[in-house]
């Protein structure tokens, strides 16, 4: 992590310097277009990776930047997924407004729960987020008249994007759509973390008690980022609904909350791209390993996770940036 002491000049120009697009980032987005030409049969997987990456970024905002440890973020992913599915069942299948609706709904719930979140820290936070996640899952299970219960939501009908781009079997539309939304999500997240607000979040993460002393209302900051993160997670969930036209209780499950944290740690927390890299590696590995051995592939995933974390405790991006730093 770059320390603020390097900024000899005023903080605003330091922040500006931080927010400049690096060559690595530009290269990353160019590479993200490659599947269209080189792996056209992997586009559905690519679109689900993009969706998971967006979800990972939403978790990174609260976990990596603000230090809110969460094991229940699938709650917002699932709420967004169900919101997007239910609005199509109500007769409005337009995807872009559906995305906004789902994001807004998740944000509302995020804002309401944030009042509880800011009251606790550390282990208690894990318990609270976990509990909220389970509550939402059981609620969705019990309200089977609305959610379809264990069978999943049926009859989700999403219209073509702009009335023209239909969601095709190969996943061209799904990947293009998911990638564009992911890109916009990253742009938004970059603005947030490279703003004065983002900086104060890191302050909260590093030393909670000092923030009020320097006149920074940390509770308000935490509530704000938690709400924004919930909205992003909701949008990711809505994307999954729209590109697959299905929603199930699994979108709300603990497994999804846990997996996303694993991906984030794998890629490196507090770096935005860490979540994306983690999602790519985790999901590609899962796809390849489960193809080779459908019964026991979790064994290899476990091995991969341990190997990566033992060699690079700060995740892949953390390890790479340390290597790069050593060379220079």
């Amino acid at each position, binding site marked *: 992590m770059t320390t603020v002491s390097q900024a000899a000049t005023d903080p605003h120009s330091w922040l500006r310097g931080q927010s400049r697009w690096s060559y690595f980032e530009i290269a990353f987005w160019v590479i993200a277009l490659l599947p269209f030409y080189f792996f056209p049969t992997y586009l559905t*997987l690519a679109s*689900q990776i993009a969706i998971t990456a967006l979800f990972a970024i939403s978790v990174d905002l609260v976990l990596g930047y603000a230090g809110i440890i969460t094991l229940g973020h699938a709650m917002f992913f699932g709420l967004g997924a169900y919101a997007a599915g239910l609005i199509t069942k109500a007769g409005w299948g337009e995807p872009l407004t559906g995305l906004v609706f789902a994001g807004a709904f998740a944000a509302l719930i995020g804002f309401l729960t944030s009042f509880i979140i800011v009251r606790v820290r550390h282990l208690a936070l894990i318990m609270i987020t976990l509990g909220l996640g389970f509550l939402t899952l059981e609620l969705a*299970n019990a309200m089977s008249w609305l959610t379809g219960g264990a069978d999943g939501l049926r009859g989700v009908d999403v219209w073509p994007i702009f009335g023209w781009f239909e969601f095709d079997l190969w996943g061209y539309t799904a990947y293009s759509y998911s990638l564009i939304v992911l890109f916009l999500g990253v742009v938004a997240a970059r603005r947030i973390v490279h703003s004065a607000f983002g900086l104060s979040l890191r302050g909260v993460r590093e030393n909670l008690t000092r923030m009020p002393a320097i006149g920074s209302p940390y509770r308000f900051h935490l509530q704000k980022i938690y709400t924004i993160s919930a909205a992003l997670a909701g949008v990711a969930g809505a994307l999954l609904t729209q590109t697959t036209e*299905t*929603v*199930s209780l699994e979108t709300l499950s603990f497994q999804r909350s846990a997996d996303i944290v694993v991906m984030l740690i794998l890629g490196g927390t507090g770096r935005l791209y860490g979540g994306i890299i983690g999602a790519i590696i985790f999901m590609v590995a899962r796809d390849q390993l*489960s193809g080779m051995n459908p*019964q026991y592939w979790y064994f290899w995933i476990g091995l991969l996770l341990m190997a990566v974390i033992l060699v690079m405790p700060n995740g892949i991006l953390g390890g790479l940036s340390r290597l790069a730093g050593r060379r220079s």
Partner: protein
Amino acid sequence: MVKKIVVALAMGFGLAGGANAQETVKIGVIVPYSGPFADAGNQLDAGIELYIQQHGDEVAGKKIEIIRKDTGGPSPDVAKRLAQELVVRDGVDILAGFALTPEALGAADVATQAEKLMVVMNAATSVVTEMSPYIVRTSVTIPQVNYPFGKWAYESGVTQAYTLVADYGPGHDAEQSFARGFTEAGGEIIGADNTPVANPDFSAYVQRVRGADPEAVYIFIPGGAQPAAIGKALAERGLTPPDTKIFGQGELTHPEALESMGENALGIITTFHYTLERDDPLNNEFVEAYREANDGRSPDLFSIGGYDGMHLIYEALKETEGDTSGDALVEAAKGMSWDSPRGPMSIDPETRDVVQTVYIREVQEVDGVLQNVIIDEIPNVKDPLHGADE
């Protein structure tokens, strides 16, 4: 225009994948091979495997190739992606498996879009076959076994009953179809309770049932440790046959459950489409071969679903002489009938759903071992919900 070229290119890739498959028929199997439902997936897979082992891997001059994909659980999004990939990347001709309803619902659209035969080998929610004209089911539906069971219960002399079901989709379906059959015949449901799906303590519920003092209790709970727990709770409070009849769906008294329930299981009456102990040459041969291939493990409803699903695929391919187009295969499957280890079964030409004998079984001690003994059979049962308004 650009979009059309892109799609054409993609189709080219898809076809290129299928071109070298001229002499093979690729079947993509989508089930949970890992996670909490792995046992169901693996039993289903063992049924598929046994059928291929017994009947060879060549049909109508083509070689059968199985491509296995793991969903990890009831995730329709994963199932849909796997189905898309199987079609686009692996160039499969037939989609099969689907142990869980969400998996089948997720993949249904893909079968329709790609025009591929989709054989549902378990997923037991009624509506599944209505989600695509390419779906054929070879397992069972919950209303199929419970609706006639409700009628049978009334005709056996029970006039009022209490229902106690696990609080989730299949539990509600079972409760509704049993109650419908029972009340339509003239019976009365005097009480209904839902138990939590995971780790329930049955004693309080059973106490409530006892208070209502019904002639019979209908129970639907997930397998695993629960049958033993509820058997114990019922026995402790004196709710045992013949004073109070205990009704349930087959899973309640499957062999592993019987082992853990012990004597408490005696007299429980269940309804099912497959009975392991049914004395029939086909079934005996099937059970023996299955145990031999799977370290003594007995086949269950998943195994028989996979086994009969493969039978349907083989016979359909024979009839189309190796034509793997979805329309031809579905057409061949409609109205197909055969003798399965479970008994006579057929595919309804209108709904593409399974039609079969429903067995009413009672737990009895035979040669010192607890068994499900068939006490009645209801032949040619269709799913009662198809065509009916939901």
